[in-house]
């Protein structure tokens, strides 16, 4: 057992209202710079939809992530052989049109325009060239199903849905969508790190944050192509790859990342997970249908004495272990099994998990009320507007079992709380539902607490980062005592 600690995340999609506050917070803090205008380290997508960059989930096109060939894990985008032919240019990179042409407006024109019969207007100009542009797309162009015949209709997750189900998704009065906020998943088996010819990307030892060393990056852009989530971006001005850094400077000072901190719906949870690094490859080689469960089996119980002693042996600090025991992520992912990794079939072992959303039911109505006296309690999960199959494509590698489990538990908790507070459900029914959903009343209360009444401290359990210890491992503070700070304090030169 090789125990490592990782700062992991849970996004509770049932609570996301799609306000994009997270995206804006991130943009203001990190990507409001030349060359980064088009980047959205955090973005919120409407599902069904094709997302940002367009159709990022279609790995036939983008060739991101891993595939199993001859019983071995292999990057889809590149290999030692392929790189010979693609040494000057990676052929699987999204073009700016697939992200979007970032634009602003020429506001000066409002002041500088010569006298004329017409009101001057501020026309859109490209943030890259400064020329007038025709806006054709944006980072959330298909927000709330905008342009759905083009975008939503082409969502790769619709695969396996019947014609009837597809039509239902956009039919009048049954139309449905939910939001999918996305940041870097800080994967356990990151394909971006594996693909980098310069070794510029790395997974930080103490907390598992995946970073790009700006001094070592040589603009190969292999990471851009290799990341199946398209969460590594290329800064055309700096000539370097950039990605979400999980606001590590904030984490190191005990603050939640900007997108977490600003989340209006309080959908985001952050905490430490312990995992067994020695089994990553074995798990990543499993069949699609077994992946979710296998991935979960990598996560270790911080209360298990065996795990604790192995963690201590691996040099994990006592305070981190303590933090892992309080981790809301551990509860959602491992204890309650409600949070699932996105597109685990890309085999990068993402460490960001999503609680799948419940959607309005199509169930029968009796006198204007939902019929809850059915002997089959969870009929509405199969009849919910978002087909389970769709969610399974997103969160279960096409396997419905785990998604169904998470949805049933959510529903059982809701009904349990209705029995407790509103009283329109009798206690016995609620208990039976809980039992069928593999949940105890205590667990239901805990889920309810962490879902609905969670405070800042409940949602973000940030371990002390011990920067001083980490720095001591890399360089002697004695040598740097008279200088200003650690690390490189000068800018990096453009690589190409």
């Amino acid at each position, binding site marked *: 057992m090789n125990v490592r600690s990782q700062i992991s995340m849970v996004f509770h999609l049932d609570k996301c209202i799609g306000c994009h506050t997270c995206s804006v917070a991130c943009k203001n803090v990190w990507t409001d710079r030349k060359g980064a205008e088009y980047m959205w380290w955090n973005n919120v997508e409407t599902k069904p939809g094709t997302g940002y960059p367009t159709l990022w989930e279609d790995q036939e*096109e*983008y060739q991101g992530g891993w595939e199993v060939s001859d019983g071995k894990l292999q990057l889809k985008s590149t290999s030692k052989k392929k790189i010979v032919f693609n040494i*000057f240019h990676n*052929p699987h*990179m*999204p073009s*700016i049109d697939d992200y979007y042409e970032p634009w602003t407006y020429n506001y000066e024109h409002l002041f500088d325009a010569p006298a004329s019969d017409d009101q001057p207007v501020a026309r859109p100009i490209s943030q890259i060239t400064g020329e007038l542009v025709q806006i054709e797309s944006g980072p959330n162009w298909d927000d709330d199903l905008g342009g759905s015949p083009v975008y939503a209709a082409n969502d790769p997750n619709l695969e396996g849905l019947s014609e009837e189900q597809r039509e239902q998704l956009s039919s009048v009065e049954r139309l449905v969508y939910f939001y999918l906020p996305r940041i870097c998943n800080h994967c356990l088996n990151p394909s971006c790190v594996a693909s980098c010819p310069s070794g510029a990307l790395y997974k930080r030892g103490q907390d598992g944050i995946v970073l790009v060393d700006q001094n070592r990056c040589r603009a190969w852009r292999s990471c851009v192509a290799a990341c199946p989530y398209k969460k590594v971006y290329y800064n055309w001005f700096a000539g370097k790859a950039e990605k979400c850094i999980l606001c590590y400077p904030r984490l190191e000072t005990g603050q939640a990342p900007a997108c977490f901190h600003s989340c209006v719906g309080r959908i985001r949870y952050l905490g430490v997970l312990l995992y067994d690094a020695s089994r990553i490859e074995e798990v990543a080689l499993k069949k699609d249908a077994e992946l979710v469960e296998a991935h979960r089996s990598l996560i270790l119980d911080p209360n298990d004495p065996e795990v604790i002693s192995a963690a201590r042996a691996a040099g994990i600090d006592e305070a981190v272990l303590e933090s892992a025991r309080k981790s809301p992520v551990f509860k959602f992912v491992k204890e309650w099994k409600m949070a699932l990794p996105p597109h685990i079939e890309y085999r990068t072992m993402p460490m960001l998990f999503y609680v799948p959303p419940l959607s309005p039911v199509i169930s029968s109505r009796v006198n204007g009320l939902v019929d809850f006296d059915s002997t089959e309690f969870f009929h509405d999960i199969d009849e919910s507007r978002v087909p389970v199959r769709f969610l399974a494509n997103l969160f279960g590698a096409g396997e419905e079992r785990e998604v169904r489990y998470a949805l049933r538990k959510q529903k059982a908790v809701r009904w349990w709380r209705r029995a407790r507070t509103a009283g329109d459900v009798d206690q016995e029914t609620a208990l039976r539902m809980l039992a069928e959903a593999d949940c105890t009343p205590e667990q239901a209360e805990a889920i309810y607490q962490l879902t609905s009444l969670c405070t800042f401290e409940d949602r973000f359990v940030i371990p002390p980062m011990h920067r001083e210890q980490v720095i001591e491992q890399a360089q002697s503070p004695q040598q740097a005592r008279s200088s200003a700070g650690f690390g490189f304090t000068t800018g990096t030169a453009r690589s190409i």
Partner: protein
Amino acid sequence: MKKRAVPGERALTDVCCLQVLSFLGQSWSTVGAPSHILCFVHAAPLEATAMTVHGSIGLSCGLLFFIAGLSAQSPAEDYAQNCAMCHTIGGGPLVGPDLAGMSSRRERAWLVRFIVDPQAVIDSGDATARALLQSYQGMVMPAIPGITPKRATALVDYVRQQEGSGGAAKTGQGAPAALEPFTSREVERGRALFSGLAPFEAGGTACIACHDTGDLPLLGGGSLGPSLTHVFKRFGGRKGLETWLASPPTPEMASLYRRRPLTEQEITALIAYFEDRAAGEAKPAAHAGFLLLGSAGTALILLIFHLLWRERFHGVRARLVRQYRTRGVQ
């Protein structure tokens, strides 16, 4: 929307291809391969080659000036090195006119001016110079490297003195050219030397690198220097060619052959070949073939690139929109 050099820029592939090609072009030209082979692939290699060639010419010219400046030659040596391959004094015209009676035909100042910079005198619209140019098939007399008015005056004096005495400089240097017809073996030998199949003894560059004769297979010869199909006539037959080849006066040729001169046998073989070419029917230059072959080569390379990278990412958003538009609202 215009394409730009931002992530996923496909145009970058083309740029990179060009870099590779131009690199190949440069390395090829440095090993002395016919420069034009790459010309039709893209302009960049041609440029690179031309630059290399010009660079070397410039360098060698500089070197010659330096040498000329160092050695103070006697007019006789000067004449032998720079004039005798094209001119005789009373021996009849070769590539250039017979210099006998030169001093009485032309003014002394004109002669000095012309020797120092023939091209400038022609460009100034001088009628005598123009007439000369016409009677010698448009061949401009090459300027002697490092020539000064003082040296030119000395040369003019030397010629005048020689025509009076009927001295040694009567004929051009080298052995008198044979008058009997060349054998086909000599012609073949000349062609082999021209095309580089047989090397020059002293290691000089094969003629094909810069010249064409219109009967070379495949891509023909180079186009950097003039075509030599009719050089036999232009240079006034065997005698003219012989003296010229024995010590080529133009800066380009001089830089290549002064240090690696052709042997007598080689010169004879080349003359045989040139004579044969001039006698044979005048084939049109292979330029149309070049163009065709070049276009076909380009198409082939592009096809290979396309096949190699046919799985490449083509951009999806624009395609989705296009598909929707052609399908129409459902």
